[in-house]
């Protein structure tokens, strides 16, 4: 027979105002299996917990109910208290008589609350009777991390993890790390040169003994679970034997073929043999197989690069290769894209070369960019006399783009206006905006500077149309503060286009088994309290793959994630909640309904063999490291062969019988 104790909390007056707690306790004593019941003012207080511990010992309790606030508040507290008194923590259940009872029903006679509180406690008593003592699951941890994406967020995470003494494999899709920050000219709000602050970090990551860079590569497949992932990386063929390359750049000089530079936003050309930008890390070039005549013209002539390469490291026949790494944690830092100008035909985007995005402007303003840092418009290289910046291009506008705010455009548009003013002294900047959102530290001051010192003209309102006229661009819009239509003749128009998820972000999410929102930004475990974790154990997020953000936040997240990873790596084994599914091997049909339904691929086929090693049959097996305990499999299994610990069918039935 069970020996259950019931502790009915008054929660000061929070519960006692509606529930006669002493009466509930008294009545619960009649329930078979309950050997002790009492009430008190605050069980969550230290004396309250002490009283519970005392009663556990005195009555030799083997299960307990605390009738109090929501289990989301104090389940952990009471389970811990019970544990220190020698009771298995999973033999403790909470009857929620505050949030679900005293706070939501009012009856001056207290009859109503008392009756309902009693019912709730009775249901939990039946449930706890069938609670099996469980113990935490121990999982070994591989103390090596994988970081996907080498933007500033990924670099920061990798550096901090590596400095913490753990190995990191940093996988970057492009030939170089750096991400978007490498494209930026100067950065708000301090206006330091982006390359100058980023390049040292890139080099540090490259040279760090604990970091291995794998560039021009993507994650192909992810198996396993927290502490024990096996990741297959596809290394795209660089057509170069990387180990032998001295990064001398001779081959690039000799390459006669030109191709569009994505890094320069298509505003200039690079070679078919290329590094994306001069400070690229690593400096090993790759051959663009869409441009090199060796490939597009079916292995025809050229091969000049191979002739000049001293160490002879050019390999035209190189194939993609695959590498498997074992890691204990994965950091996703794949960043963002911006909506292309082509999405805005009404602004002549894609039609006029002088309608560009903010990233184009960054390159124009950058000393290492196609214009050497002078603001010249792309169509004819003329220095524009008037530039119109259109904020919220596609942001906060479900119809034309996305409903969310891209968070950084107000700031970078102010920055652009300033940069423009510094570089073209007679120029005039106009900025169309919906609202100015400059919430960061020193951000508002920065914006005021653009208005007050740099003379940028801010117009509140939306632009309806941009069209070319006599070599200039006519911007038609509304100034809602003045309440009139405005028409501005500009030489260049810069669209602050919406920050959007990376192309293929959903694909990667599915490979990793993490959630994403309707747009494709990755979901945090909890947006406030677990901002860099995902619901899948061992997989973390950092940077703009979560949503639009500025560099300081991306860097902070990189460091935050590193703390999480190092925390995970601080023990040889990790313990986790034992709420997992379990299979009754004798009745399993091997129909694999559970396996198909499980959202975490936590179910495996286990072969049952005889002594000779022949396979007799297969049964389902739950990988306790992967199982998150949702119970989807339990409801899928016809023969009730699989059950969920802590929320078993028997427990649910028992609770229902007590309703």
């Amino acid at each position, binding site marked *: 027979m069970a020996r259950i104790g019931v502790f009915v909390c008054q929660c000061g007056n929070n519960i006692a105002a509606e529930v006669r707690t002493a009466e509930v306790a008294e009545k619960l004593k009649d329930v078979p299996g309950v050997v002790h019941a009492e009430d008190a003012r605050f069980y969550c207080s230290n004396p309250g917990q002490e009283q519970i511990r005392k009663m556990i010992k005195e009555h030799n309790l083997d299960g307990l109910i605390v009738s109090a606030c929501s289990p989301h508040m104090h389940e952990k507290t009471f389970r811990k208290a019970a544990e220190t008194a020698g009771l298995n923590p999973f033999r403790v259940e909470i009857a929620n008589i*505050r949030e679900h009872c005293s706070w939501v029903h009012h009856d001056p*006679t207290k009859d109503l609350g008392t*009756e309902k509180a009693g019912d709730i406690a009775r249901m939990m008593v039946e449930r706890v009777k069938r609670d099996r003592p469980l113990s935490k699951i121990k999982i070994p941890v591989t103390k090596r991390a994988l970081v996907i994406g080498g933007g500033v967020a990924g670099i920061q995470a990798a550096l901090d993890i590596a400095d913490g003494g753990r190995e990191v494999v940093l996988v970057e899709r492009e030939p170089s790390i750096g991400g978007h920050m490498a494209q930026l000219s100067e950065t708000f709000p301090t206006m330091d040169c982006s390359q100058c602050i980023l390049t040292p970090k890139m080099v540090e990551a490259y040279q760090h003994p604990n970091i291995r860079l794998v560039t021009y590569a993507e994650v192909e497949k992810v198996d396993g679970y927290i502490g024990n992932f096996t990741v297959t990386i596809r290394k795209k063929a660089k057509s170069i034997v990387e180990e032998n390359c001295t990064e001398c750049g001779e081959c690039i000089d000799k390459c006669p073929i030109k191709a569009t530079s994505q890094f320069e936003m298509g505003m200039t050309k690079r070679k078919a043999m290329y590094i994306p930008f001069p400070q690229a890390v690593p400096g090993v070039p790759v051959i663009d197989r869409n441009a090199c005549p060796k490939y597009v013209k079916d292995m025809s002539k050229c091969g000049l690069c191979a002739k000049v390469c001293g160490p002879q490291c050019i390999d035209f026949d190189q194939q993609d290769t695959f590498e498997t790494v074992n890691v204990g944690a994965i950091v996703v830092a794949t960043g963002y894209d911006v909506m292309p100008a082509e999405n805005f035909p009404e602004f002549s985007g894609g039609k006029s070369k002088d309608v560009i995005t903010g990233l184009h402007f960054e390159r124009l303003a950058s000393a290492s960019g196609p214009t050497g840092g002078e603001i010249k418009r792309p169509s004819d290289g003329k220095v524009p006399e008037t530039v119109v910046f259109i904020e919220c291009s596609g942001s906060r506008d479900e119809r034309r783009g996305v409903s969310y705010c891209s968070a950084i455009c107000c700031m970078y548009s102010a920055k652009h206006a300033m940069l423009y003013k510094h570089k073209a002294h007679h120029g005039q900047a106009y900025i169309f905006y919906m609202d100015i959102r400059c919430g960061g530290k020193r951000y508002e001051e920065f914006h005021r500077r653009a208005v007050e010192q740099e003379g940028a003209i801010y117009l509140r309102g939306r632009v309806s149309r941009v069209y070319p006229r006599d070599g200039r661009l006519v911007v038609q819009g509304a100034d809602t503060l003045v309440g009139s239509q405005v028409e501005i003749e500009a030489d260049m128009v810069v669209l602050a286009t919406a920050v959007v998820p990376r192309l293929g972000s959903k694909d990667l999410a599915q490979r990793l088994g993490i959630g994403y929102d309707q747009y494709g930004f990755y979901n945090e475990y909890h947006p406030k309290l677990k901002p860099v974790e995902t619901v899948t154990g061992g997989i973390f997020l950092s940077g703009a793959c979560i949503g639009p953000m500025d560099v300081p936040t991306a860097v902070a997240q990189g460091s935050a994630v590193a703390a999480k990873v190092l925390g995970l790596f601080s023990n040889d084994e990790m313990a986790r909640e034992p709420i997992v599914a379990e299979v009754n091997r004798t009745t399993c049909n091997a*129909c694999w309904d559970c396996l198909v339904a499980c959202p975490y691929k936590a179910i495996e086929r286990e072969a049952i063999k005889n002594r000779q090693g022949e396979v007799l049959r*297969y049964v389902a097996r739950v990988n306790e490291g992967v199982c998150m305990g949702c*119970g989807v499999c339990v*409801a899928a299994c016809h*023969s009730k062969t699989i059950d969920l610990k802590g*929320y078993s069918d028997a427990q649910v039935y028992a609770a229902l019988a007590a309703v």
Partner: protein
Amino acid sequence: METKAQATEPAAQESVQAAVQKKTAVKIVAFVCNWCTYAGADLAGTSRMQYRPNVRVVRLTCTGRIDPLFLIKAFENGADGVIVSGCHPGDCHYVAGNYHARRRWVFFKSLLDFVGIDERRVFFSWVSASEANKWAKLVDEAVETVTGLGPYTQYKMLTDTRRAWEPEMPWSEAWAPGIPEGVPLPEPTPLDLAVRAKAKEILETGKAKVVIGYAWAKRQRRAVPVFVADPAETDSLIFNALCVNNLTNYLTRHAKDVKALGRPAVFVKGCDARNLVVLQQESQVRREDVTVIGVPCNGVVYRPETWQGHLTPETLSPKCAGCEVREPRNCDETVVGEVHPLPAEGMSPIDSKIAEMDAQPSQVRWNFWMEQFDRCIKCYACRQVCPLCYCERCITEKNQPQWIDTSAHPEGNLSWNLIRAIHLAGRCTFCGECDRACPVNIPLNLINRKLGLVAKEAYGYAAGMDPGSLPPMIVFKPDDKENFIR
């Protein structure tokens, strides 16, 4: 929902207390997920919202954990209404649990409705952790609606009255099928000869060691399953409208015995072949381990005792009207034979019966099914003949917890028939074996077919057609329809 201020007004107080005092207060059981709806209900508390007290919450990990059968258990335990609620699509704490739940609910809801359990007593909803308001409103609405409908006496009567079972059908006669006295055994038809030749060829060429087919029974004149291993004995094989059995059943339930005889070849009609596809999808039969011989079929008899030597529209099994697979698919070998074109008439009798029942008030359906299920003797013949009821241990044999009352009494009979129906939803191929085998003539095919129609309407899925697909209850699409969820 009321605010606290309103609740303390005398009128509001009175109604709540009146309800408590009168023992007529309805009871609502709410199955909710831990992360969204439970937290939403917590927030309702933190925000001191006021709602009706009649709800008892069962906290589960996820809506995906909610077995549809929990709802039946709730009714059996005296619930007058049930709420099922979890995270909004896309918000599931476990990524996809609610998507799975949503599909299960579609089938289960249709099933409940079809047997006449009043839909208005079941509330499906998505309530997020921030929708305290919605939770309070949901509970109030549920309590009001169910109070309006009154306590669920209909179900409670089932539980309370353990009626003595009285057979109403001449069920013993159903067990004596065969060709009536005086009708001579037919001469071998060209189809019989073709079947024999095929079986012989398969045994002689070693494609299989044993052929599972049909032959005339020794004494009674009816078709029975036979196992033929000797090519010389293939002369006993036949195929005609009396060959009702679904022989694929031998590949699961009797797999061990069959295996002992060597590699099997099995004769299948179109509907039987569909079962094999499901068995293949569910890894119960390895397709490469069996030779499947398709026979063209122009329909079989419903009640063999009505057989007059040839098939007439009156003796044709209702499952065969409107059959789309007279020529079986997914076979290794086929026997060549004539297939008559389908009669051009509209709906099959089963489908028109379903349409007729759907149009009736739910009370009429309830009465119909209670009358039917009342006769069930829990012989489990339906399960035994079903190739898809291959479970090592059926849920009926699980007693920790006891899912189904083992005795043949109305409450347990209802839950047994609901459970089997939901287990076959989206899998049943309408071979009609359960319907045929039921000694008390419960029209089980009606229910199975109904859920088959749901699968088709909701997910464009027909069971047993495509070995590469998966049954609709174990997969989902994020944009599955959900117009029934509040």
